[in-house]
């Protein structure tokens, strides 16, 4: 295996800046790794070989000409296939957008390009980001690099798997109910859902507009912070974008000092019903945080048990409305347009041909929750619960600096295990959903392997709005302490995948 693919983004950036290695060499090494392992992992839906190499060449030329380039210039990345890329396929894992090439770039894509980051391709996901396993992708499941018979999490399983498999050091995900954090947890990587409004959503295909947030994925806390600082910031093209300074996440990731901080363990999402090894690693991490000088207390958020129900009413309601645009008229698939079908029939046939079962389920559920007679009992009630969840967080953050919990109730489960049981699938999100409802930032970072199955466990850190830097500070402290215990990053325990 080429050494280049094992390097962190920060180390690659340093070598690139020192001209020890060229962006073309770095990109070529990662493309070769994709060729080597992606048949087995299936993290990518589309590899933009030519585009990536052309960008890398341009970066090298600018550097040779003496230009001072942004920190991550020349570092490769996998981009979730929900982010619009001009002229490069963007399918959202759906047949309804098969072959669609957006005529414009998302703001995030533009920012990545301006930072000189090399976009290797588009990563796999559950269709329209609905799922926790990538099994709802219309283009096949991504496999967890730790165990190819297991799910890589979802919806952004492709993004997390590509960094865990060393196909890219960085990736972009989106998180509506945990789609960055849960894949990070089950692949032994780091993922951050920024504050709602902290990163522009312009050009991101909307799932549930009041919950969706774009965020960075990396193999360690500092790399993730470097990417966070590239994509964050106010964008007039997104009316929900927050117009205030981006917290200094990179400085926080370098600091990692939690002496005197108060950390709250959320009672309601910290163990009951969770896998034994998940609980064990979490408890050890809590002890470690205490040994680093933090004051750890238990905090109760009494309304969190209602979060899952509220989420599975709000999300289907918003997505049933958002996905109405996929009607076969202006872009994507059109079915049944043979002169014999009315426009309504063409829309219905197109959506039947283009949407998978989970998308159909959620659209139907949302249509139900929003219909007259049920609106108040379902959607209206869910919105009130949302207020209660936000109030729980507000009360908690009056006492503590950050909150923590395990990221997911279990380690990676087997492919196929929960595919036909939507409720069981939804329970994966029990610990990640409250943050989305309140619009707050959260991180998942690896804290070890569950003894019973040898698979990664993630710890979730939650912070108040626009205090994203606290995630990185606490994350860096914990990561440093764990690394000194382990002697090597957790991912060095993952199988080689060579010749896979």
């Amino acid at each position, binding site marked *: 295996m080429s050494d280049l693919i094992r390097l962190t983004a920060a180390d690659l950036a340093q070598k690139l800046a020192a001209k020890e290695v060229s962006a073309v060499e770095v990109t070529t090494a990662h493309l070769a790794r994709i060729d080597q392992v992606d048949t087995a992992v299936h993290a990518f839906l589309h590899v933009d070989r030519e585009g990536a190499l052309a960008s890398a060449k341009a970066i090298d030329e600018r550097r040779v000409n003496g230009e001072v380039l942004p920190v991550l210039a020349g570092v490769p990345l996998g981009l979730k296939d929900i982010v619009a890329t001009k002229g490069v396929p963007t399918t959202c894992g759906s047949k309804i957008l098969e072959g669609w090439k957006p005529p414009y770039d998302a703001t995030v894509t533009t920012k990545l390009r301006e930072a000189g980051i090399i976009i290797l391709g588009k990563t796999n996901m559950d269709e329209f980001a609905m799922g926790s396993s990538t099994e709802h992708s219309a283009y096949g499941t991504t496999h967890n690099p730790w165990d190819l018979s297991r799910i890589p999490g979802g919806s952004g399983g492709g993004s997390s798997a590509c960094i865990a498999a060393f196909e890219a050091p960085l990736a972009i995900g989106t998180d509506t109910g945990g789609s960055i954090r849960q894949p990070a947890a089950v692949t032994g990587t780091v993922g951050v859902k920024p504050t709602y409004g902290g990163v522009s959503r312009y050009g991101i295909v909307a799932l549930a507009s009041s919950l969706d947030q774009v965020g960075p994925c990396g193999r360690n806390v500092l790399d993730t912070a470097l990417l966070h600082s590239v994509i964050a910031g106010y964008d007039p093209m997104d*009316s929900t974008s927050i117009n205030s300074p981006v917290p200094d996440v990179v400085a926080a990731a370098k600091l990692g000092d939690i002496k005197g901080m108060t950390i709250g363990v959320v009672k309601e999402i910290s163990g009951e019903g969770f896998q034994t090894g998940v609980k064990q690693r979490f408890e050890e991490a809590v002890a470690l945080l205490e040994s680093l000088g933090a004051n750890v207390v238990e905090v109760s958020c009494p309304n969190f048990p209602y979060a*899952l129900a509220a989420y599975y009413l709000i999300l289907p309601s918003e997505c049933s409305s958002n996905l109405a645009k996929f009607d076969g008229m202006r872009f994507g698939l059109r079915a049944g347009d043979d002169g014999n079908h009315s426009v309504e029939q063409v829309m*219905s046939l197109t959506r039947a041909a283009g949407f998978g079962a989970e998308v*159909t*389920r959620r659209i139907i559920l949302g*249509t139900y929750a929003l219909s007259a007679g049920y609106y108040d009992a379902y959607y209206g009630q*869910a919105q009130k619960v949302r207020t209660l969840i936000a109030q729980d967080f507000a009360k908690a953050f009056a006492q503590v600096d950050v909150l923590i919990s395990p990221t997911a109730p279990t380690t990676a489960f087997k492919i196929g295990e929960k595919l036909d049981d939507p409720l069981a699938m939804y329970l994966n999100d029990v610990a990640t959903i409250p943050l989305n409802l309140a619009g707050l930032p959260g991180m998942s970072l690896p804290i070890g392997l569950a003894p019973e199955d040898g698979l990664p466990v993630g710890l979730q850190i939650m912070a108040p709005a626009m205090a994203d830097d606290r995630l990185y500070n606490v994350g860096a402290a914990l990561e440093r302490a764990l690394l000194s215990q382990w002697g090597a990053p957790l991912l060095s325990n993952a199988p080689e995948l060579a010749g896979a």
Partner: protein
Amino acid sequence: MSAISRDDVSHLAKLARIEIPETELDHYAAQLGAILDAVDQIASAPTDGVPAMSHPVPMTNVFRADVPAESLSAPEALSGAPAVEDDRFRVPRILDEE
């Protein structure tokens, strides 16, 4: 209890413009029924006098300055269309010809 019948699913599918084959209606009805049973728990949440929250960031009327800006050209906007005619989206007939 939120029993949802195959007729309900059929009606909702019509409203949502998704053609669902007769043979799949029962399966969807059972799954949706199970999900609704689970989310029914929300009725017991203590929400008396609690305001609804539609969005995490309170913002109203976010407008940009009313100045002309660049937008997609017609060919760009039409580039992903399933059918184009005379520089426009071609859609199936909406009105009868009578």
